[in-house]
């Protein structure tokens, strides 16, 4: 079946694949790998793998002001990585960037530290029905611990945030709104700048789960106006084990520490401790040193492409895939149809075939997609689905991958005799 007769993608996916060693790996099917699971985690370009090898091979020591040459080298590269992240997301200072393991830890940090210090009975927190568990469960925990209330902004049948419902809930004066920039299960891009204006007018801080946006589109936290943002390095071509929390300096300054131990203190006696300045106050113990440097290399790689072009490329693939799948009998798509409101993540179900069976048959064709609840069980409940299959795009994908996906779904229907 032919996909996309008109126009061409902005990036040459096949050429970019040459930068990623994983695509040399043969699949059991004998066909090349069509990797359509970047929303779960991205593959890594040689530039990142080599940056790690270089960091470990030539610039590695513990950070935090060792005095010798090698530690000064490691330390300044680690801090340079912080600056790279700050610039990439439009933060006004690297001091506002805390290195953590992943977006999950970033969100836990805000919930426990800011929430623990600022929430109590009678206070209200808003989250939404489309959140990843990482932006849900920590708020449930802190609500339980502090006695604060927790409500969820509703989503519409086509997977957009219900702004009427948001307005109504903001009118109750919540202290904080935690929401995803891009939903990992629906693909929805939320209008964050507008939502943040509304939230701030209502006196609520905004915590942005940017795990699915920062890797795929230009994101400027200052322009968006949010107060905190969470991201994961592994979803943006970087290493696993590294992520970042960005927060406004004055908020971070006022927050109590989260994890405690070495290098987040200035003074420790047997009676108690005094905390270091931000961001180090939030980085207890030896951080993911080389992984931070690897993340900086990933940012370099993405910037050499240009985030506008990354977004345009994925938008193009999304449009072609959506157009083809939309017309397929027995296939139902989730999330908004408009490419302005939909990132390169397509959740779908095939009538009469369980999402896991779809994924298994696609796998037998060398196509890697994810099936399940995508850590968004409330979304599954909302649409009364046990699970969905999800295809997601990145720079190394191209129309060939889209075509194989569509063909694979057709094959699945043939195997199950539903086509």
């Amino acid at each position, binding site marked *: 079946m032919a996909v996309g007769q008109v126009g061409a993608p902005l990036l040459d996916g096949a050429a970019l694949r040459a930068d990623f060693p994983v695509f040399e790996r043969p699949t*059991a*099917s004998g066909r090349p790998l069509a990797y359509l699971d970047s*929303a*779960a*985690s991205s593959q890594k370009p040689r530039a990142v793998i080599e940056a790690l090898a270089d960091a470990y091979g030539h610039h590695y020591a513990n950070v935090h002001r060792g005095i010798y040459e090698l530690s000064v080298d490691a330390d300044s590269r680690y801090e340079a990585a912080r600056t790279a992240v700050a610039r990439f997301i439009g933060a006004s200072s690297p001091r506002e960037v805390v290195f953590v393991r992943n977006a999950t830890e970033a969100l836990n940090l805000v919930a426990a530290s800011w929430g623990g210090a600022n929430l109590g009975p009678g206070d209200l927190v808003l989250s939404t029905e489309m959140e990843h568990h990482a932006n849900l469960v920590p708020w449930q925990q802190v609500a339980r611990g502090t006695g604060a209330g927790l409500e969820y902004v509703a989503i519409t049948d086509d997977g957009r945030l219900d702004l009427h419902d948001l307005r109504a809930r903001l009118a109750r004066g919540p202290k904080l709104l935690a929401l995803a920039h891009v939903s*990992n299960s629906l693909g929805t891009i939320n209008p964050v700048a507008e939502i943040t204006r509304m939230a701030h007018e209502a006196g609520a801080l905004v915590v942005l789960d940017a795990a699915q946006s920062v890797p795929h589109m230009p994101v400027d936290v200052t322009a968006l106006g949010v107060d905190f943002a969470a991201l994961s390095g592994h979803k943006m071509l970087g290493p696993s084990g590294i992520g970042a929390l960005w927060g406004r300096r004055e908020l971070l300054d006022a927050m109590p520490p989260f994890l405690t131990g070495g290098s987040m203190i200035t003074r420790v006696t047997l009676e108690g401790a005094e905390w270091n300045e931000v961001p180090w106050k939030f980085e207890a113990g030896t951080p993911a040193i080389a992984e931070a440097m690897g993340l900086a290399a990933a940012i370099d790689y993405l910037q050499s492409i240009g985030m506008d072009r990354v977004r345009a490329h994925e938008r193009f693939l999304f449009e072609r895939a959506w157009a083809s799948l939309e017309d397929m009998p027995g296939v139902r798509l989730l999330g908004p149809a408009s490419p302005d409101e939909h990132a390169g993540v397509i959740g779908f179900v095939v009538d009469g*075939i*369980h*999402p*896991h*069976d779809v994924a*298994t*048959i*696609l*796998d*037998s*064709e060398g196509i890697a997609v*994810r*099936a*399940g*609840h*995508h*850590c968004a069980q409330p979304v*599954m409940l909302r649409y009364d*689905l*046990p*699970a969905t299959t999800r295809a997601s795009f990145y720079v190394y994908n191209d129309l060939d991958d889209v075509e194989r996906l569509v063909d694979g779904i057709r*094959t*699945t229907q043939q*195997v*199950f*005799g539903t086509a």
Partner: protein
Amino acid sequence: MTGDNLYRDFILEHYREPHNRGVLEPHDLHFADSNPTCGDEMSMTLRLDEARERVADIAFDGRGCAISQASASILTDDLRGLTLGELRELDPAEVVANLGVPIGPARLKCALLVYKVLQGAVRGAAVGWPEEADVLAGGNAGGSAP
């Protein structure tokens, strides 16, 4: 190709027209469990013989993927007449082997859901996944994850 090997005709037939599907009323044993990996939920009802020793009848219910449905359909076919002790001793590896198709680690829990529910029914309490289903990360939470 896994997909082709796995979804052999008899598997798909069991999926489309599962044997022993439904709820036995009245029943002697009942249990329900789930595999969050697939969003699958399965319940089971058993009727025992007069000595309350052997399976007189058995049925399963719920929704799920082809593998879990076929596995339940195939296994339940074989259980009538067995004693409760024999059910308890069932070897999960045999449940899988008995399916006659190559079940990779990613789908082991699908194939074993019926085993887990059956053990729950026989023992009267939820049991963990058999060791062989733990070769991959995530315990219950699984592939559905990120």
